[in-house]
């Protein structure tokens, strides 16, 4: 066995997986990765099951050191500078840390959450089939709380498999798609239009439980109290002050505010990766389109292994990486000569 030691880590970082299902009827929160596609990509790179537990790293920097042997890891999600002993590591690729080596990750440049998957996965005590951390309920394993410097994972020694990169599906851009309801009839047409036609920003006070949306106040038709009703990931509830809250992975299983709309499954991760302060819009879609997108999203996760490529087929473009970093842009460092601006949602 090797160890992967958390050398440093910012707040809002924890172990997450596909979530804890089957006990919402008892009030047990689902939790799990804020961006499932990125979790799945990181896991696929090191040969893990797509929704296996990995480290979800919040917007701040982090560093991980291999001890007692080599450890193979992979990163995907919100782009950041990453290096091992000064050698850059591209996003969406795997890297093997030799004993004593440290992978250092900078702040997220666009987006919020980056996933660090570890070859062989993270071991811990499953509760309802999940290691996902819900800090409020003191649930999750091996650490039922946000990660801290000094935490460590007992992990498989690196297999020596060749390093891989993954060519992710073209990112979706444009408005965050929603289905109206389940309580859109608690709002008149003018206020539904106000919700759909306004520009929104995510408040800095948001967290894994909910994203507070800044924009115009949405008014209720009959007041803001409803008898508590079940919630889903992406439920957008409107409390008394009219400022909508998008419920995220650590949401309560029920809530007492009318829900004007629900983010479609395929876009929950995109919303999760929208940085605080970035302007975006919502767009209503039909049930048929939403379900079609949900099926495509599930298929995209299933087909990730087909998108693996050997890392040594391209050279890192250090110059482009450096330029881009200076300019504050994200760069795809494995596609020599090309670089891209972080997609605005």
């Amino acid at each position: 066995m090797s160890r992967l030691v958390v050398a440093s880590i910012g707040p809002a970082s924890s172990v997450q997986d596909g979530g804890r299902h089957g006990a919402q009827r008892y009030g047990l929160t689902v939790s799990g990765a804020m961006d499932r596609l990125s979790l799945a990509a990181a896991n696929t790179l090191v040969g893990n099951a797509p929704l296996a537990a990995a480290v979800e790293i919040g917007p701040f920097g982090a560093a991980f050191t291999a001890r007692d042997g080599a450890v193979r890891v992979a990163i995907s999600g919100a782009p950041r500078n990453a290096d091992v002993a000064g050698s850059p590591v591209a996003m969406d690729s795997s890297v093997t840390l030799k004993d004593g080596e440290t992978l250092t990750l900078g702040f997220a440049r666009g987006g919020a959450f980056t996933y660090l998957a570890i070859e062989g996965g993270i071991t811990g005590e499953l509760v309802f089939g999940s290691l996902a951390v819900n800090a409020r309920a003191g649930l999750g394993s091996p650490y039922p709380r946000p990660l801290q410097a000094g935490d460590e994972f007992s992990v498989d020694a690196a297999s020596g498999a060749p390093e891989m990169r993954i060519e992710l599906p073209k990112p979706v851009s444009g408005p965050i798609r929603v289905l109206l309801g389940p309580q859109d009839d608690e709002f008149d047409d003018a206020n539904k239009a106000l919700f759909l036609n306004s520009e929104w920003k995510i408040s800095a006070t948001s967290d894994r439980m909910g994203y507070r949306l800044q924009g115009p106040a949405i008014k209720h038709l009959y007041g803001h109290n409803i008898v508590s009703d079940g919630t889903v990931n992406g439920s957008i509830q409107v409390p008394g002050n009219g400022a909508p809250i998008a419920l995220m992975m650590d949401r309560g299983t029920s809530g007492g505010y009318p829900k004007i709309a629900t983010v479609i499954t395929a876009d929950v991760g995109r919303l999760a990766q929208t940085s605080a302060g970035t302007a975006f819009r919502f767009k209503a879609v039909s049930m048929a389109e939403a379900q079609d997108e949900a099926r495509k999203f599930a298929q995209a996760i299933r087909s990730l292994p087909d998108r693996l490529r050997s890392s040594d087929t391209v050279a890192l473009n250090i110059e482009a990486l450096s330029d881009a970093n200076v300019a504050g842009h994200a760069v795809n460092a494995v596609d020599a000569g090309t670089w891209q601006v972080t997609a605005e949602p």
Partner: protein
Amino acid sequence: MAATLPPPRLLPSGDSAVTVEFSRTIDDDANQRVLALDKALVASPIDGITETVPTYRSLLVHYDPGKIGFDALGEKLLPIAIQPPPPVTKARRWRIPVAYGGEHGIDLEDVAKALNTTPDDIIARHAGGDYKVAMIGFTPGWSYLSGLDKSLHMSRRQNPRLLTPAGTISIGGVQAGIQCLAAPSGWHLLGRTPVRTYQLHRNPTFLTEPGDRVTFFAIDHKTFEELDRAAEAGELVAEQVAA
């Protein structure tokens, strides 16, 4: 009874869940039908349903749109949902000990004053009630109870507390509750129970199920300490009595 309720409505909750709504208000008949539909889906599962969450007035049905679409699911759900609920034959019944007042029930005196009576009278009315677990939600094990004595109905606190203790026994609006974990709450704190409705390494992890019946009985604060230690060690502490 059930016949007075309008037909249930299917409300999309995104692309992977549907709310089967029986009522917009707290209504015991509606809750009975929610629990009956939930039970029926356990007895005869519909392929594609992944999880159900009963609430006071609706059943949230999570499903996999890769297995069944919204319309097809609705066509299967509605005929079951419109069935009149079978009479409740056997519900599990729990007797839950409560240390009322003092540090454990910091709102007891105020509630008594607001309702123009004595703390002992509030305790008698609260402990004299026969409650049903209408739903569990918000945080693990938080049991929402219907059946609160009408004389104890009162609006929630103007300023919700950011943190109330684990085990809090409280009332709010027309509802009574058993709270398991420390949590924010705008309800009135009458007492505290040593019973854990949720305890990770205990079998069962969750004490109450929607549909269970609950009564309370008063214990002194010294007994609370003893039972609290026993509960911490994994004992149920709650008494199950024949229905």
